[in-house]
Protein backbone atom coordinates (compact mmCIF):
# COMPACT_ATOMS: atom_id res chain seq x y z
CA UNK A 1 0.00 0.00 0.00
CA UNK A 2 2.74 2.45 0.98
CA UNK A 3 4.66 1.38 -2.07
CA UNK A 4 1.62 2.23 -4.16
CA UNK A 5 1.35 5.74 -2.79
CA UNK A 6 5.07 6.28 -3.35
CA UNK A 7 4.67 5.13 -6.95
CA UNK A 8 1.75 7.46 -7.54
CA UNK A 9 3.57 10.40 -6.03
CA UNK A 10 6.54 9.71 -8.29
CA UNK A 11 4.20 9.45 -11.29
CA UNK A 12 3.00 12.99 -10.61
CA UNK A 13 6.22 14.48 -9.24
CA UNK A 14 8.49 13.76 -12.21
CA UNK A 15 6.31 15.22 -14.99
CA UNK A 16 5.61 18.25 -12.79
CA UNK A 17 9.32 18.77 -12.33
CA UNK A 18 10.00 18.47 -16.05
CA UNK A 19 7.18 20.90 -16.90
CA UNK A 20 8.46 23.43 -14.37
CA UNK A 21 11.96 23.11 -15.80
CA UNK A 22 10.75 23.65 -19.36
CA UNK A 23 8.77 26.74 -18.34
CA UNK A 24 11.85 28.02 -16.55
CA UNK A 25 14.05 27.48 -19.61
CA UNK A 26 11.44 29.28 -21.71
CA UNK A 27 11.24 32.20 -19.29
CA UNK A 28 15.00 32.60 -18.96
CA UNK A 29 15.83 32.24 -22.64
CA UNK A 30 13.12 34.66 -23.80
CA UNK A 31 14.44 37.26 -21.36
CA UNK A 32 18.13 36.57 -22.02
CA UNK A 33 17.73 36.65 -25.80
CA UNK A 34 15.45 39.69 -25.65
CA UNK A 35 12.75 38.09 -27.81
CA UNK A 36 9.83 40.47 -28.36
CA UNK A 37 6.58 39.63 -26.70
CA UNK A 38 4.76 39.68 -30.04
CA UNK A 39 6.88 36.72 -31.19
CA UNK A 40 7.07 34.76 -27.97
CA UNK A 41 6.07 36.17 -24.59
CA UNK A 42 7.58 34.55 -21.49
CA UNK A 43 5.32 32.21 -19.48
CA UNK A 44 5.04 34.84 -16.75
CA UNK A 45 3.42 37.21 -19.25
CA UNK A 46 1.04 34.48 -20.36
CA UNK A 47 -0.02 33.80 -16.77
CA UNK A 48 -0.41 37.51 -16.20
CA UNK A 49 -2.68 37.78 -19.24
CA UNK A 50 -4.69 34.80 -18.01
CA UNK A 51 -5.19 36.45 -14.64
CA UNK A 52 -5.98 39.92 -16.05
CA UNK A 53 -8.30 38.86 -18.83
CA UNK A 54 -9.93 35.86 -17.18
CA UNK A 55 -13.40 37.30 -17.84
CA UNK A 56 -12.79 37.38 -21.57
CA UNK A 57 -11.21 33.93 -21.55
CA UNK A 58 -14.03 32.37 -19.56
CA UNK A 59 -16.69 34.02 -21.73
CA UNK A 60 -15.22 32.26 -24.74
CA UNK A 61 -14.21 29.07 -22.95
CA UNK A 62 -17.68 28.14 -21.71
CA UNK A 63 -19.47 27.82 -25.06
CA UNK A 64 -16.57 25.76 -26.42
CA UNK A 65 -16.53 23.44 -23.44
CA UNK A 66 -20.29 23.15 -23.47
CA UNK A 67 -20.29 22.08 -27.12
CA UNK A 68 -17.34 19.76 -26.54
CA UNK A 69 -19.03 17.95 -23.68
CA UNK A 70 -22.37 17.80 -25.50
CA UNK A 71 -20.79 16.49 -28.71
CA UNK A 72 -18.76 14.01 -26.70
CA UNK A 73 -21.81 12.80 -24.77
CA UNK A 74 -23.74 12.30 -28.01
CA UNK A 75 -20.82 10.37 -29.49
CA UNK A 76 -20.65 8.12 -26.44
CA UNK A 77 -24.37 7.31 -26.52
CA UNK A 78 -24.44 7.02 -30.32
CA UNK A 79 -21.20 5.02 -30.44
CA UNK A 80 -22.38 2.50 -27.88
CA UNK A 81 -25.77 2.09 -29.60
CA UNK A 82 -24.15 1.53 -33.00
CA UNK A 83 -21.65 -0.87 -31.41
CA UNK A 84 -24.54 -2.89 -29.97
CA UNK A 85 -26.09 -3.03 -33.44
CA UNK A 86 -22.75 -4.13 -34.88
CA UNK A 87 -22.47 -7.02 -32.46
CA UNK A 88 -26.10 -8.12 -32.70
CA UNK A 89 -27.03 -7.54 -36.33
CA UNK A 90 -25.33 -9.41 -39.12
CA UNK A 91 -26.44 -6.83 -41.66
CA UNK A 92 -24.89 -3.98 -39.69
CA UNK A 93 -21.71 -5.92 -38.95
CA UNK A 94 -21.15 -7.15 -42.46
CA UNK A 95 -22.50 -4.12 -44.34
CA UNK A 96 -21.98 -1.02 -42.24
CA UNK A 97 -19.06 -1.85 -39.98
CA UNK A 98 -16.48 -2.10 -42.80
CA UNK A 99 -17.80 1.18 -44.21
CA UNK A 100 -17.43 2.82 -40.80
CA UNK A 101 -13.88 1.52 -40.46
CA UNK A 102 -12.84 2.57 -43.97
CA UNK A 103 -14.46 5.99 -43.61
CA UNK A 104 -11.96 6.59 -40.82
CA UNK A 105 -9.42 7.58 -43.48
CA UNK A 106 -11.45 10.69 -44.32
CA UNK A 107 -9.89 13.59 -42.43
CA UNK A 108 -13.18 14.60 -40.83
CA UNK A 109 -11.87 18.06 -40.00
CA UNK A 110 -11.87 18.82 -43.72
CA UNK A 111 -15.65 18.54 -43.68
CA UNK A 112 -15.94 21.60 -41.41
CA UNK A 113 -16.54 24.13 -44.23
CA UNK A 114 -19.21 21.85 -45.65
CA UNK A 115 -21.01 21.83 -42.31
CA UNK A 116 -20.92 25.63 -42.30
CA UNK A 117 -22.67 25.55 -45.66
CA UNK A 118 -25.27 23.10 -44.42
CA UNK A 119 -25.89 24.23 -40.86
CA UNK A 120 -24.67 27.82 -40.77
CA UNK A 121 -22.04 29.41 -38.60
CA UNK A 122 -23.87 28.74 -35.33
CA UNK A 123 -23.37 26.19 -32.63
CA UNK A 124 -24.96 23.40 -34.68
CA UNK A 125 -21.93 23.12 -36.95
CA UNK A 126 -19.51 22.96 -34.02
CA UNK A 127 -21.62 20.42 -32.21
CA UNK A 128 -21.96 18.17 -35.24
CA UNK A 129 -18.27 18.32 -36.05
CA UNK A 130 -17.39 17.46 -32.44
CA UNK A 131 -19.84 14.57 -32.55
CA UNK A 132 -18.55 13.33 -35.90
CA UNK A 133 -14.87 13.20 -34.97
CA UNK A 134 -15.57 11.70 -31.54
CA UNK A 135 -18.07 9.14 -32.78
CA UNK A 136 -15.75 6.81 -34.72
CA UNK A 137 -13.22 5.85 -32.07
CA UNK A 138 -16.10 5.49 -29.63
CA UNK A 139 -18.00 3.10 -31.90
CA UNK A 140 -14.99 1.02 -32.85
CA UNK A 141 -13.73 0.69 -29.28
CA UNK A 142 -17.16 -0.23 -27.92
CA UNK A 143 -17.72 -2.75 -30.72
CA UNK A 144 -14.35 -4.30 -29.93
CA UNK A 145 -15.38 -4.53 -26.29
CA UNK A 146 -18.67 -6.25 -27.06
CA UNK A 147 -17.01 -8.65 -29.48
CA UNK A 148 -13.96 -9.58 -27.43
CA UNK A 149 -15.82 -11.79 -24.96
CA UNK A 150 -13.85 -14.99 -24.41
CA UNK A 151 -15.51 -17.93 -26.17
CA UNK A 152 -15.24 -20.03 -23.00
CA UNK A 153 -17.08 -17.40 -20.96
CA UNK A 154 -19.82 -17.46 -23.55
CA UNK A 155 -20.02 -21.26 -23.37
CA UNK A 156 -19.99 -21.17 -19.59
CA UNK A 157 -22.97 -18.81 -19.56
CA UNK A 158 -24.79 -21.03 -22.05
CA UNK A 159 -24.36 -24.13 -19.90
CA UNK A 160 -26.15 -22.21 -17.14
CA UNK A 161 -28.90 -21.44 -19.64
CA UNK A 162 -28.17 -17.70 -19.81
CA UNK A 163 -30.44 -15.81 -22.20
CA UNK A 164 -29.10 -13.39 -24.83
CA UNK A 165 -30.37 -10.54 -22.71
CA UNK A 166 -28.55 -11.84 -19.60
CA UNK A 167 -25.39 -12.47 -21.58
CA UNK A 168 -25.50 -8.89 -22.87
CA UNK A 169 -26.00 -7.17 -19.52
CA UNK A 170 -23.98 -9.47 -17.31
CA UNK A 171 -21.11 -10.32 -19.67
CA UNK A 172 -20.80 -8.23 -22.82
CA UNK A 173 -21.48 -4.87 -21.19
CA UNK A 174 -18.99 -5.17 -18.31
CA UNK A 175 -16.51 -6.77 -20.70
CA UNK A 176 -16.80 -3.73 -22.99
CA UNK A 177 -16.47 -1.18 -20.20
CA UNK A 178 -12.63 -0.87 -20.28
CA UNK A 179 -12.79 -0.48 -24.07
CA UNK A 180 -15.55 2.11 -23.79
CA UNK A 181 -13.44 4.19 -21.41
CA UNK A 182 -10.46 3.80 -23.74
CA UNK A 183 -12.69 5.16 -26.52
CA UNK A 184 -13.93 8.01 -24.32
CA UNK A 185 -10.38 9.17 -23.63
CA UNK A 186 -9.69 9.38 -27.35
CA UNK A 187 -13.07 10.92 -28.12
CA UNK A 188 -12.92 13.74 -25.61
CA UNK A 189 -9.67 15.08 -27.07
CA UNK A 190 -11.06 14.74 -30.59
CA UNK A 191 -14.30 16.50 -29.60
CA UNK A 192 -12.26 19.49 -28.45
CA UNK A 193 -10.42 19.55 -31.78
CA UNK A 194 -13.74 19.37 -33.64
CA UNK A 195 -15.19 22.36 -31.79
CA UNK A 196 -12.05 24.48 -32.10
CA UNK A 197 -11.65 23.83 -35.81
CA UNK A 198 -15.28 24.67 -36.41
CA UNK A 199 -14.79 27.93 -34.48
CA UNK A 200 -11.70 28.68 -36.55
CA UNK A 201 -13.67 28.34 -39.75
CA UNK A 202 -16.65 30.47 -38.83
CA UNK A 203 -17.92 31.54 -35.45
CA UNK A 204 -18.53 34.65 -33.39
CA UNK A 205 -17.66 33.11 -30.04
CA UNK A 206 -15.72 30.31 -28.47
CA UNK A 207 -12.09 29.83 -27.55
CA UNK A 208 -11.18 28.89 -31.12
CA UNK A 209 -12.64 32.18 -32.30
CA UNK A 210 -10.68 34.00 -29.58
CA UNK A 211 -7.40 32.37 -30.63
CA UNK A 212 -7.99 33.37 -34.23
CA UNK A 213 -9.01 36.89 -33.22
CA UNK A 214 -5.95 37.35 -31.00
CA UNK A 215 -3.79 36.09 -33.83
CA UNK A 216 -5.27 38.69 -36.15
CA UNK A 217 -4.53 41.42 -33.60
CA UNK A 218 -0.99 40.09 -33.11
CA UNK A 219 -1.84 39.76 -29.40
CA UNK A 220 0.42 36.78 -28.85
CA UNK A 221 0.12 36.74 -25.02
CA UNK A 222 -3.69 36.51 -25.33
CA UNK A 223 -3.36 33.76 -27.92
CA UNK A 224 -1.10 31.73 -25.66
CA UNK A 225 -3.35 32.45 -22.68
CA UNK A 226 -6.33 31.10 -24.63
CA UNK A 227 -4.35 28.02 -25.71
CA UNK A 228 -3.27 27.46 -22.10
CA UNK A 229 -6.84 27.80 -20.81
CA UNK A 230 -8.00 25.34 -23.47
CA UNK A 231 -5.24 22.86 -22.64
CA UNK A 232 -6.00 23.01 -18.93
CA UNK A 233 -9.70 22.41 -19.65
CA UNK A 234 -8.85 19.49 -21.93
CA UNK A 235 -6.64 17.99 -19.28
CA UNK A 236 -9.40 18.41 -16.69
CA UNK A 237 -11.96 16.68 -18.91
CA UNK A 238 -9.54 13.83 -19.56
CA UNK A 239 -8.80 13.55 -15.83
CA UNK A 240 -12.51 13.36 -15.02
CA UNK A 241 -12.93 10.45 -17.44
CA UNK A 242 -9.82 8.70 -16.11
CA UNK A 243 -11.14 9.18 -12.57
CA UNK A 244 -14.55 7.70 -13.38
CA UNK A 245 -12.77 4.88 -15.20
CA UNK A 246 -10.64 3.83 -12.25
CA UNK A 247 -13.83 3.73 -10.18
CA UNK A 248 -15.98 1.91 -12.76
CA UNK A 249 -13.35 -0.47 -14.11
CA UNK A 250 -12.08 -1.42 -10.65
CA UNK A 251 -10.94 -4.86 -11.74
CA UNK A 252 -8.09 -3.75 -13.97
CA UNK A 253 -5.41 -1.07 -14.26
CA UNK A 254 -6.26 2.04 -16.33
CA UNK A 255 -6.09 1.70 -20.09
CA UNK A 256 -3.55 4.43 -20.88
CA UNK A 257 -2.15 2.35 -23.70
CA UNK A 258 -5.47 2.42 -25.55
CA UNK A 259 -5.88 6.16 -25.18
CA UNK A 260 -2.37 6.80 -26.47
CA UNK A 261 -3.60 5.94 -29.97
CA UNK A 262 -5.76 9.07 -30.13
CA UNK A 263 -5.05 12.78 -29.77
Amino acid sequence: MRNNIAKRTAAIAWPTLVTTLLLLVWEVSVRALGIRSIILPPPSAVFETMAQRHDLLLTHLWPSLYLTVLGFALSVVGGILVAVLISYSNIVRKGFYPVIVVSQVIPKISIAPLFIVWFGTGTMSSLLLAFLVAFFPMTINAAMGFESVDEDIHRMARTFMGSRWQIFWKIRMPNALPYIFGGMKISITLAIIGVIVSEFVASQEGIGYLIKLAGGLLDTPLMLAAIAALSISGLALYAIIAGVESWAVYWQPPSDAVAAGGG
Partner: protein
Amino acid sequence: MRSAAASPTPGLTPGWGHGGTIVRITALKKTFGDLEAIRQLSFDVADGEFLSVLGPSGCGKSTLLMMIAGLINPSAGEIRIKDAKVAGPRREIGVVFQSPVLLPWRTVLQNVLFPIELLKLPRPQYRRRALELLRMAKIDEFSGLLPRQLSGGMRQRVAICRALVHDPSILLMDEPFSALDAITRDEMAVELQRIWQANRKTVIFVTHSIREAAFLSDRVLVMGRRPATIIDELAIELPRPRAIAVTEDETFNRLVRHLRKAIEASHAE
Protein backbone atom coordinates in the same frame (compact mmCIF):
# COMPACT_ATOMS: atom_id res chain seq x y z
CA MET B 1 -10.62 -55.31 -26.98
CA ARG B 2 -12.44 -54.99 -23.70
CA SER B 3 -10.32 -55.55 -20.64
CA ALA B 4 -11.01 -58.33 -18.20
CA ALA B 5 -11.41 -55.79 -15.43
CA ALA B 6 -14.58 -54.41 -16.98
CA SER B 7 -17.80 -55.86 -15.63
CA PRO B 8 -21.26 -55.66 -17.24
CA THR B 9 -22.38 -53.28 -14.49
CA PRO B 10 -20.18 -50.25 -13.90
CA GLY B 11 -17.48 -51.03 -11.40
CA LEU B 12 -18.40 -48.98 -8.39
CA THR B 13 -16.58 -49.00 -5.13
CA PRO B 14 -19.16 -50.32 -2.66
CA GLY B 15 -20.92 -47.57 -0.81
CA TRP B 16 -20.41 -44.79 -3.35
CA GLY B 17 -22.83 -45.13 -6.20
CA HIS B 18 -26.58 -44.91 -5.78
CA GLY B 19 -26.95 -47.34 -8.64
CA GLY B 20 -29.13 -46.81 -11.68
CA THR B 21 -28.16 -45.25 -14.98
CA ILE B 22 -28.22 -41.47 -15.10
CA VAL B 23 -26.57 -40.89 -18.49
CA ARG B 24 -26.99 -43.20 -21.46
CA ILE B 25 -25.08 -42.60 -24.65
CA THR B 26 -26.12 -44.61 -27.69
CA ALA B 27 -24.35 -44.89 -31.05
CA LEU B 28 -23.08 -41.34 -30.76
CA LYS B 29 -21.39 -39.87 -33.78
CA LYS B 30 -20.01 -36.43 -34.55
CA THR B 31 -18.53 -35.14 -37.77
CA PHE B 32 -17.28 -31.65 -38.54
CA GLY B 33 -17.55 -31.41 -42.30
CA ASP B 34 -15.39 -34.25 -43.58
CA LEU B 35 -13.69 -34.75 -40.26
CA GLU B 36 -15.03 -37.62 -38.23
CA ALA B 37 -14.46 -36.69 -34.59
CA ILE B 38 -16.46 -39.38 -32.84
CA ARG B 39 -17.57 -42.74 -34.22
CA GLN B 40 -20.15 -45.05 -32.70
CA LEU B 41 -19.78 -44.22 -29.05
CA SER B 42 -22.00 -46.01 -26.54
CA PHE B 43 -21.73 -46.16 -22.78
CA ASP B 44 -23.72 -45.70 -19.59
CA VAL B 45 -22.89 -43.68 -16.53
CA ALA B 46 -24.28 -44.76 -13.17
CA ASP B 47 -25.78 -42.30 -10.73
CA GLY B 48 -23.11 -41.11 -8.32
CA GLU B 49 -20.28 -42.61 -10.34
CA PHE B 50 -16.95 -40.91 -10.93
CA LEU B 51 -16.18 -41.73 -14.54
CA SER B 52 -13.04 -40.61 -16.36
CA VAL B 53 -12.72 -40.42 -20.11
CA LEU B 54 -9.04 -40.82 -20.84
CA GLY B 55 -7.46 -40.13 -24.19
CA PRO B 56 -4.75 -38.26 -26.05
CA SER B 57 -5.19 -34.56 -26.84
CA GLY B 58 -7.48 -33.89 -29.77
CA CYS B 59 -9.16 -37.30 -29.62
CA GLY B 60 -12.63 -35.78 -29.41
CA LYS B 61 -13.19 -36.24 -25.70
CA SER B 62 -13.91 -32.54 -25.16
CA THR B 63 -16.37 -32.68 -28.02
CA LEU B 64 -18.07 -35.57 -26.26
CA LEU B 65 -18.34 -33.52 -23.07
CA MET B 66 -19.74 -30.50 -24.91
CA MET B 67 -22.38 -32.76 -26.45
CA ILE B 68 -23.38 -34.08 -23.03
CA ALA B 69 -23.56 -30.45 -21.85
CA GLY B 70 -25.95 -29.75 -24.73
CA LEU B 71 -23.67 -27.13 -26.30
CA ILE B 72 -23.03 -29.13 -29.48
CA ASN B 73 -25.50 -31.35 -31.31
CA PRO B 74 -24.50 -34.89 -32.23
CA SER B 75 -24.46 -35.86 -35.91
CA ALA B 76 -26.11 -39.18 -35.11
CA GLY B 77 -27.06 -41.22 -32.07
CA GLU B 78 -28.35 -39.77 -28.84
CA ILE B 79 -27.58 -38.79 -25.31
CA ARG B 80 -30.18 -39.33 -22.61
CA ILE B 81 -30.03 -37.87 -19.15
CA LYS B 82 -32.51 -39.35 -16.69
CA ASP B 83 -34.23 -40.80 -19.73
CA ALA B 84 -34.74 -37.42 -21.41
CA LYS B 85 -33.01 -36.73 -24.69
CA VAL B 86 -30.41 -33.95 -24.53
CA ALA B 87 -31.31 -31.14 -26.93
CA GLY B 88 -29.65 -28.18 -25.22
CA PRO B 89 -28.16 -27.02 -21.94
CA ARG B 90 -29.92 -28.43 -18.88
CA ARG B 91 -30.27 -27.32 -15.30
CA GLU B 92 -29.03 -30.58 -13.83
CA ILE B 93 -25.58 -30.16 -15.34
CA GLY B 94 -22.61 -28.19 -14.04
CA VAL B 95 -19.52 -27.73 -16.18
CA VAL B 96 -15.92 -27.05 -15.20
CA PHE B 97 -13.80 -25.94 -18.16
CA GLN B 98 -10.10 -26.22 -18.82
CA SER B 99 -9.55 -22.63 -17.71
CA PRO B 100 -11.52 -21.25 -14.75
CA VAL B 101 -13.45 -18.74 -16.96
CA LEU B 102 -14.29 -16.49 -14.04
CA LEU B 103 -15.73 -13.04 -14.65
CA PRO B 104 -12.92 -10.65 -13.68
CA TRP B 105 -15.30 -7.93 -12.44
CA ARG B 106 -17.02 -10.22 -9.96
CA THR B 107 -15.76 -11.26 -6.55
CA VAL B 108 -15.28 -14.94 -5.77
CA LEU B 109 -18.72 -15.17 -4.14
CA GLN B 110 -20.41 -13.26 -6.97
CA ASN B 111 -18.77 -15.58 -9.47
CA VAL B 112 -20.02 -18.63 -7.62
CA LEU B 113 -23.52 -17.14 -7.56
CA PHE B 114 -23.48 -16.33 -11.28
CA PRO B 115 -25.43 -19.49 -12.31
CA ILE B 116 -28.04 -18.66 -9.68
CA GLU B 117 -28.63 -15.29 -11.35
CA LEU B 118 -28.80 -16.81 -14.82
CA LEU B 119 -31.18 -19.54 -13.67
CA LYS B 120 -33.22 -17.00 -11.65
CA LEU B 121 -33.09 -19.08 -8.48
CA PRO B 122 -33.72 -17.56 -5.01
CA ARG B 123 -30.49 -15.79 -4.11
CA PRO B 124 -30.50 -15.78 -0.27
CA GLN B 125 -30.94 -19.53 -0.10
CA TYR B 126 -28.18 -20.25 -2.62
CA ARG B 127 -25.90 -17.66 -1.05
CA ARG B 128 -25.73 -19.90 1.99
CA ARG B 129 -24.99 -22.87 -0.22
CA ALA B 130 -22.30 -20.94 -2.09
CA LEU B 131 -20.58 -19.98 1.15
CA GLU B 132 -20.73 -23.58 2.29
CA LEU B 133 -19.17 -24.78 -0.97
CA LEU B 134 -16.42 -22.18 -0.63
CA ARG B 135 -15.77 -23.37 2.90
CA MET B 136 -15.60 -26.94 1.68
CA ALA B 137 -13.15 -25.93 -1.05
CA LYS B 138 -11.17 -24.08 1.64
CA ILE B 139 -11.43 -20.72 -0.08
CA ASP B 140 -14.20 -19.11 2.00
CA GLU B 141 -11.78 -16.52 3.39
CA PHE B 142 -11.26 -15.24 -0.18
CA SER B 143 -14.95 -14.85 -1.01
CA GLY B 144 -14.65 -11.05 -1.28
CA LEU B 145 -11.57 -11.04 -3.52
CA LEU B 146 -11.43 -10.60 -7.28
CA PRO B 147 -10.19 -13.47 -9.48
CA ARG B 148 -6.95 -11.69 -10.38
CA GLN B 149 -5.99 -11.73 -6.70
CA LEU B 150 -6.09 -15.55 -6.62
CA SER B 151 -3.64 -18.23 -7.76
CA GLY B 152 -4.48 -20.58 -10.63
CA GLY B 153 -5.42 -23.44 -8.28
CA MET B 154 -7.68 -21.16 -6.21
CA ARG B 155 -9.43 -19.93 -9.35
CA GLN B 156 -10.15 -23.47 -10.47
CA ARG B 157 -11.59 -24.21 -7.01
CA VAL B 158 -13.92 -21.24 -7.48
CA ALA B 159 -14.92 -22.66 -10.87
CA ILE B 160 -15.73 -26.02 -9.24
CA CYS B 161 -17.87 -24.31 -6.59
CA ARG B 162 -19.67 -22.38 -9.34
CA ALA B 163 -20.40 -25.59 -11.23
CA LEU B 164 -21.91 -27.11 -8.06
CA VAL B 165 -23.81 -24.13 -6.70
CA HIS B 166 -27.17 -24.84 -8.35
CA ASP B 167 -26.97 -28.41 -7.06
CA PRO B 168 -26.74 -30.22 -10.42
CA SER B 169 -26.82 -33.99 -10.43
CA ILE B 170 -24.05 -34.27 -13.02
CA LEU B 171 -20.70 -32.53 -13.00
CA LEU B 172 -18.83 -32.38 -16.31
CA MET B 173 -15.14 -31.59 -16.09
CA ASP B 174 -13.05 -30.86 -19.16
CA GLU B 175 -9.37 -31.32 -18.24
CA PRO B 176 -9.91 -28.95 -15.34
CA PHE B 177 -6.39 -29.23 -13.91
CA SER B 178 -4.37 -29.25 -17.12
CA ALA B 179 -3.29 -25.63 -16.73
CA LEU B 180 -1.97 -26.16 -13.21
CA ASP B 181 1.51 -27.13 -12.05
CA ALA B 182 2.14 -30.74 -11.00
CA ILE B 183 2.06 -30.13 -7.25
CA THR B 184 -1.13 -28.07 -7.36
CA ARG B 185 -2.61 -30.74 -9.61
CA ASP B 186 -2.11 -33.48 -7.04
CA GLU B 187 -3.57 -31.25 -4.36
CA MET B 188 -6.59 -30.45 -6.52
CA ALA B 189 -7.21 -34.13 -7.24
CA VAL B 190 -7.37 -34.85 -3.51
CA GLU B 191 -9.64 -31.85 -2.97
CA LEU B 192 -11.92 -32.83 -5.82
CA GLN B 193 -12.28 -36.31 -4.41
CA ARG B 194 -13.22 -34.85 -1.03
CA ILE B 195 -15.77 -32.46 -2.59
CA TRP B 196 -17.18 -35.30 -4.68
CA GLN B 197 -17.55 -37.56 -1.64
CA ALA B 198 -19.36 -34.81 0.26
CA ASN B 199 -21.71 -34.00 -2.65
CA ARG B 200 -22.14 -37.40 -4.29
CA LYS B 201 -22.60 -36.05 -7.77
CA THR B 202 -22.14 -38.05 -10.91
CA VAL B 203 -18.86 -36.85 -12.41
CA ILE B 204 -17.72 -37.23 -15.99
CA PHE B 205 -14.09 -36.21 -15.97
CA VAL B 206 -12.18 -35.77 -19.21
CA THR B 207 -8.40 -35.94 -18.96
CA HIS B 208 -5.23 -36.93 -20.78
CA SER B 209 -3.46 -37.71 -17.51
CA ILE B 210 -3.39 -41.45 -16.82
CA ARG B 211 -2.42 -40.95 -13.18
CA GLU B 212 -5.21 -38.46 -12.60
CA ALA B 213 -7.81 -40.74 -14.16
CA ALA B 214 -6.65 -43.74 -12.13
CA PHE B 215 -6.48 -41.77 -8.90
CA LEU B 216 -9.90 -40.15 -9.11
CA SER B 217 -12.18 -42.59 -10.87
CA ASP B 218 -14.51 -45.44 -10.15
CA ARG B 219 -14.16 -46.38 -13.78
CA VAL B 220 -12.00 -45.22 -16.68
CA LEU B 221 -12.97 -45.25 -20.35
CA VAL B 222 -10.02 -45.12 -22.72
CA MET B 223 -10.58 -43.37 -26.03
CA GLY B 224 -8.36 -43.88 -29.06
CA ARG B 225 -7.24 -41.38 -31.64
CA ARG B 226 -9.72 -39.76 -33.97
CA PRO B 227 -12.28 -40.90 -34.87
CA ALA B 228 -12.86 -41.58 -31.20
CA THR B 229 -14.24 -44.85 -29.96
CA ILE B 230 -13.88 -46.56 -26.61
CA ILE B 231 -10.92 -48.93 -26.80
CA ASP B 232 -10.79 -50.02 -23.19
CA GLU B 233 -12.68 -49.83 -19.94
CA LEU B 234 -11.22 -50.30 -16.49
CA ALA B 235 -12.82 -50.35 -13.03
CA ILE B 236 -10.66 -48.81 -10.31
CA GLU B 237 -11.49 -50.61 -7.13
CA LEU B 238 -9.25 -48.80 -4.73
CA PRO B 239 -10.76 -47.91 -1.36
CA ARG B 240 -11.74 -44.29 -0.69
CA PRO B 241 -10.81 -41.78 0.43
CA ARG B 242 -7.60 -42.19 -1.51
CA ALA B 243 -4.53 -40.30 -0.38
CA ILE B 244 -1.93 -39.16 -2.88
CA ALA B 245 0.37 -41.84 -1.37
CA VAL B 246 -1.83 -44.43 -3.07
CA THR B 247 -0.08 -43.52 -6.32
CA GLU B 248 3.09 -45.15 -4.95
CA ASP B 249 1.36 -48.51 -4.43
CA GLU B 250 1.93 -51.47 -6.69
CA THR B 251 -1.84 -51.95 -7.22
CA PHE B 252 -2.13 -48.37 -8.46
CA ASN B 253 0.87 -48.70 -10.73
CA ARG B 254 -0.52 -51.88 -12.21
CA LEU B 255 -3.68 -49.98 -13.14
CA VAL B 256 -1.63 -47.15 -14.63
CA ARG B 257 0.43 -49.62 -16.67
CA HIS B 258 -2.75 -51.26 -17.92
CA LEU B 259 -4.16 -47.92 -19.07
CA ARG B 260 -0.90 -46.86 -20.67
CA LYS B 261 -0.72 -50.09 -22.63
CA ALA B 262 -4.26 -49.60 -23.86
CA ILE B 263 -3.40 -46.12 -25.13
CA GLU B 264 -0.14 -47.26 -26.70
CA ALA B 265 -1.93 -50.11 -28.43
CA SER B 266 -4.32 -47.61 -30.00
CA HIS B 267 -1.37 -45.61 -31.32
CA ALA B 268 0.18 -48.69 -32.87
CA GLU B 269 -2.94 -49.45 -34.87
